[in-house]
């Protein structure tokens, strides 16, 4: 296990090009702008409870760039960056957090990915199951699952790793160690010195990396994925970062943590840090920055416009996805919705919305 690097590197990481860094930087800037916008939408009542990924962009982007299209991604709820890189549109991400299941109609490489998982750590065993399926077809793909630091206390985490280690599953788990589980700091979550060493209990490899360094995240994840695809077993990666935002828009972190700690964390935040590195290597000009910000603004604005113009589902639509075939009780309940809501709010019998 490596120990968390505390200083910010100023040399270029080996085997990483300036182009790659520029691209990673662009993604990170986009996600940060997007995230900020969604929080703003929530404040104005156009968005539901939303978990910001502020400060975690390097983890999400590093993972997203390392995943191949035919790998499978099993997200938790703070994975906006990775989902976007998997092909989920910003609009769909907003749709999910705007309280609409249709956001889960993922596109692109994500069409086989699992939906966001809210019950903590439960996604861990799903990922093991996906990995079993991939392995059974000898497809040389891997499954990558994420979770938070708090999630490591929940039984599912251990159960899934134990199985992954035992069956040598093509699975990579990245812990987004943002040091907080809502109001509970990591040192009140476990006495384990690092989360990476939780891998010992599963007889598998554990690595701790700097989750604010997108290149390090990318390289560690890429290495672990390659290993998994080659049938060489699972890896647990602890990516150490910091949750710069409130837990969600429903939370007020000033109730439980010092501003000083947060300010210190801002010193190491991943976007600024990568920008400095690019600057230090003459890899990024003010013009490029301006062009990027402009393009990002447009992308985000377009996504918001699209999001805000999605009509609600008809009042009976949520009754249609319980089973592949309609059941008698549900058919009856659909008819009740037709009585409860005016015609234009329910779809016709073919499931096509009328208005």
């Amino acid at each position: 296990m490596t120990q968390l690097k505390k200083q910010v590197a100023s040399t270029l990481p080996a085997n990483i090009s300036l182009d790659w860094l520029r691209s990673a930087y662009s993604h990170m800037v986009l996600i940060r702008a997007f995230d900020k916008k969604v929080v703003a939408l929530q404040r104005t009542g156009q968005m539901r409870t939303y978990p910001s990924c502020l400060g975690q962009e390097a983890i999400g982007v590093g993972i997203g760039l390392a995943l191949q299209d035919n790998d499978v991604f099993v997200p938790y709820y703070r994975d906006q960056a990775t989902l976007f890189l998997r092909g989920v549109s910003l609009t769909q991400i907003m749709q999910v957090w705007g309280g609409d299941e249709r956001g889960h109609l993922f596109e692109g490489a994500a069409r086989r990915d699992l939906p966001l998982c809210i019950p903590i750590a439960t996604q861990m065993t799903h990922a093991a199951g996906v990995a079993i399926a991939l392995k059974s077809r000898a497809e040389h793909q891997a499954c990558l699952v994420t979770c938070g630091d708090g999630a490591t206390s929940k039984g599912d985490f251990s159960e899934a790793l134990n199985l992954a280690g035992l069956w040598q599953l093509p699975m990579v788990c990245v812990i987004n160690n943002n040091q907080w589980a809502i109001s509970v700091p990591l040192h009140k979550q476990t006495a384990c010195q690092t989360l990476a060493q939780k891998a010992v209990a599963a007889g598998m490899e554990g690595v701790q990396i700097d989750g604010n360094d997108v290149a390090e995240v990318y390289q560690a994840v890429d290495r672990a994925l390659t290993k998994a695809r080659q049938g060489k077993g699972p890896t647990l990666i602890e990516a150490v970062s910091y949750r710069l935002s409130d837990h969600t828009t429903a939370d007020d972190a000033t109730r439980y943590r010092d501003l000083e700690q947060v300010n210190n964390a801002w010193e190491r935040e991943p976007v600024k840090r990568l920008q400095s590195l690019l600057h230090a290597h003459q890899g990024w000009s003010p013009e490029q920055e301006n062009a990027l910000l402009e393009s990002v603004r447009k992308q985000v604005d377009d996504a918001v416009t699209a999001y805000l113009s999605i009509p609600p589902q008809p009042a009976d639509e949520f009754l249609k996805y319980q089973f592949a075939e309609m059941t008698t009780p549900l058919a009856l309940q659909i008819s009740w919705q037709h009585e409860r809501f005016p015609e234009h709010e329910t779809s016709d019998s073919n499931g096509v919305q009328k208005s």
Partner: protein
Amino acid sequence: MSVTRAVNSGLSDINTVHEITMVEAVTLALRRAMTEDPTVVVLGEDVATNGGVFRATENLKTEFGFKRVLDTPLAESMIAGISIGMATHGMRPVAEIQFMGFIFAAMEQIVCHAARMRNRTRGRLHCPLVIRAPFGGGIGAPEHHSESTEALFAHIPGLRVVIPSSPVRAYGLLLSAIRNPDPVLFLEPKRIYRIVRQRVVDSGKGLPLDTCFTLRQGDDITLISWGAMMHETLQAATQLQQRGVNADVIDVATISPLDMTTIVRSVRHTGRCVIVQEAARSGGIASEISARVAEEAMPWLQSPVQRVTGFDTPMPYPRHEHYYLPTAADIVRACERTLGVI
């Protein structure tokens, strides 16, 4: 039809002098219980420093210290399991499950241990614990934060399931739940955590468990509900009254064990019965009550019992949850059917 008599016992009226909210009443009861009994301990995720995500445990850590208000690691099964161990050894843990949607990880501990310790040891050990959990829809929260799955717990022998529907009842029932020597699941309808204020006297007086509360008396129809849906049920009763129909309105409060005496007495008197639940329709508490009413009051029934319920789906994500939740209009319509007016 007769005149409705609004019951004014101070305990039963949702519309009394406004003073504190239901979530504040929960805090008040917790503080009271912790003051009078040093073995009472509050535990759960984010309950101490943060005071709970709904602030139900606000300030308790400051008042009682970190030995009596415990922020636990994130593991619901563990929270339930340690509560059982603590309860069998002289403590009275009041555990919070942050949202009822996350209680399922603790199901094995609740079903296999909390609810059985007394029986299995033929009374040698017992398990005086309370598990509190906010539940129900209508606040636009993310997936898993809005379900009403109380029926799953009401079918577990050895477990009490208590649901307050007003600040006064939250205070009195929670105190009784904590003092009760057996395990109680205390479900807090979070939609009404803050919508009503009520004068709550911190008298330390508990309210009876295993007992329905009659919130309004009337001769024409019996309306039965619990939790947040009491609100819509009372609204429906008011609308009916304006049309000259006087409803007996019953808050079940303890959904297991059920106080069928009060319910059957009322239905035998009115001859008509509508039961309102927010939970999914099939296999809910409304079905249990409906079955019992039919079995025990059939000769008195002038028309079949009606249930107004949620649907046999999970609660939709927030954008569409209003499609799911029963409304006062739904209740009135069911009453009309029962009364034969439509």
